[in-house]
């Protein structure tokens, strides 16, 4: 099926160039002013239809996409499929084709399985925007994180960023690693050995490719650290990942209490970072587990800024996905 002219999917940060990322961020910066107006609406997407297709529970991300669509005057429809499509006897592809037949301009999809947006993009005429797919990517989260960092640090190039927690299962970590390294930051990851596989150091291409062996060379921009302290020391940005409680049942670590003691972000640990370091968390937070309340509520924590910029980033993404041109920064 032919995709209409100018339709652009956003499946992941991995596929984007640094210029494309900056284009989205600049567009988002332009849109962010709209949310401060008395009348928070512009006609940019009037007549366009956006379907938010959420196969996985979400409050923040779904609301953020819905508000973004509405502030651009698009018609937004939310579909929450609590159980998988299979339980109704319908395949994933059927579900997508049915929605696509109603001629939406954009389908925003979240799913617990990695790759679902990619599978839908192959069959849909609508632009597909990935709102989080399994442990693969969460591109708009990384974009809003980058926007938050850019607002506070002016530039991303040269920054040292620590990402702490369940790296293995985190789509937020993956998208951020791709985005921040493309824009010139250095990343250090740390967490329990069960959740931070050593192979992660090979995640991004080193630029040096050898033909026959995949025994890749790690990229110096991404480092797997032996301890949380090593990762945080000297960092400009500390990004804390949410611990999903069900991981505990899978025996990745013994107790939440032990996790908080050894891997949680406390003021003491944060003091090892640069004096002006900022703290990010994709939410929702488990206070007292991966992040101590005194850190979460401190001035160094930009968690609510992240949420605020999320709307602007999603406005930019919807606008670009449905045919708009990026702002030149």
């Amino acid at each position: 099926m032919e995709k209409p002219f100018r339709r652009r999917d956003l499946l992941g940060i991995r596929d984007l160039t640094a210029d494309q990322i900056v284009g989205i961020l600049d567009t988002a910066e332009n849109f962010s002013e709209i949310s401060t107006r008395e009348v928070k609406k512009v006609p940019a997407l009037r007549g366009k239809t956006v379907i938010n297709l959420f196969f996985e529970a979400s409050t923040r991300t779904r609301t953020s996409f819905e508000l973004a669509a509405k502030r651009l005057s698009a018609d937004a429809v939310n579909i929450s499929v609590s159980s998988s499509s299979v339980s109704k006897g319908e395949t994933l592809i059927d579900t997508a084709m049915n929605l696509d037949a109603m001629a939406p301009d954009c389908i925003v999809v979240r799913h617990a399985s990695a790759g679902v947006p990619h599978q839908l993009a192959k069959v849909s005429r609508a632009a597909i925007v990935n709102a989080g797919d399994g442990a693969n990517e969460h591109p708009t989260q990384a974009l809003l994180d980058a926007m938050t960092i850019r607002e506070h640090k002016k530039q991303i190039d040269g920054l040292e960023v620590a990402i702490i927690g369940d790296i293995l299962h985190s789509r937020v970590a993956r998208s951020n690693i791709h985005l921040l390294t493309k824009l010139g930051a250095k990343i250090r990851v740390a967490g329990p050995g069960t959740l931070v596989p050593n192979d992660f150091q090979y995640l991004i291409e080193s630029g040096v490719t050898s033909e026959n062996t995949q025994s890749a060379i790690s990229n110096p921009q991404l480092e797997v650290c032996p301890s949380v302290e090593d990762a945080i020391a000297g960092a400009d940005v500390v990004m804390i990942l949410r611990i999903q409680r069900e991981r505990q049942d899978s025996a990745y670590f013994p107790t939440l209490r032990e996790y908080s003691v050894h891997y949680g972000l406390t003021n003491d640990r944060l003091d090892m970072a640069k004096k002006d370091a900022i703290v990010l968390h994709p939410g929702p937070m488990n206070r007292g587990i991966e992040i101590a309340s005194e850190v979460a509520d401190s001035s160094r924590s930009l968690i609510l800024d992240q949420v605020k910029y999320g709307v602007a980033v999603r406005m930019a993404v919807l606008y670009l996905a449905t045919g708009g041109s990026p702002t030149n920064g």
Partner: protein
Amino acid sequence: MKLLIANGHLIDPAAQENTGMSVLIEDGKVTGWIRPGEGVPEGCEVFDASGMLVAPGFIDMHVHLREPGQEHKETIASGCAAAVAGGWTSVCPMPNTNPVNDNAAITRYMIEQAERAGLANVFPIGAITKSSDGSELAEMGEMKAAGAVAVSDDGRPVPNAGMMRRAMQYARDFDLPVIDHCEDKSLSSGGVMHEGRVSLLLGLKGMPALAEDIDAIRDIILARDTGAHIHIAHVSTRGAVEAVRRAKSEGISVTCEVAPHHFTLTDRAVEGYDTNTKMAPPLRSAEHLEAILEGIKDGTIDAIATDHAPHHADEKALEYDRAPFGITGLETGLGLAFNELVHKGLIGLVRLVELCSTNPARIFKLIGRGTLVPGSHADITIIDPDLKWRYTNAGSLSKSRNSPFDGWDFTGAAVATIVGGRIVYRK
């Protein structure tokens, strides 16, 4: 009725023959070899095999024919049609049917269905344990009497080493090879692709190579202990290939097979989340593929087996981590062997015939097959090594379409397949 396969180039490694030779067939058996220049007997139908390779019929040691129980995916008739189109004169279906082939009645039923279809020979593989649930031995002796050629619990490998030891001790009484799909599920469960850089990149749960290594090494130790013949199914890891190589040098009774996709693709093929790249064992990384190629070249790997695993399109049109494991392979196996092994100079045609016919017949002790010496069954694969062709899922004879090789171009194909003296397929 006499049939003469005339003027072809015969390769029969079991008879150490590699020469221009015509093969005479009468009543389903090979009755004579006729050298170029010798007189042709009267009253023969003649198949002109000039420029062709004439080989003992290819035997696929590892397929899934889905009958009984899952006939919407494949039937014995449709699977056999795909088999002969791919050059295979015999196929050995795994017992994961529904019900499981864990008794003589089902073994017999499968053979009878194959006889009704009248295409390829079917030599069933019986279950090791009842219902393949790993708890009680299946009736191996009865299944062998009904025609089973080996035992395996394939995709549900016996997890308990004590049970596996007993199975080997018992199988040895009946001279049945024990085939194991080596996967320690305590290490791989929930995984959907090879664990490594690509699985981390794609956010898909990995199945580590060591899950295969550990089980293969366990089985080899048990084979040494019991004296049974262990055949490692679809080896895919460096560790498993090395373990088999070492075991062979120590004289342990071990053989192994490789699936064509494992010598062709790496885990990078999963990057588009096409569920037709999902199978068990999974597509491995390049370092494992290199080890597989070394094993094919140096003789560690005995056989090429397709692990043909048809699934209905609806079942594959799911999320990557929910889609079933397995791809079809009967029609692409030979093309892949030519593209990836023969035409790249890794192996010659003699070795190809050993991998696809001589060795499978030897491992499963198929008397009168895997060779074309007079007196043998007239199962013959006639191959044009230079024929250019394209495989499409739409043109497949299988009931299923789950191949990642849709649209691939190949050089080298079976142009005729003869089973029991009858030409059952012509390209």
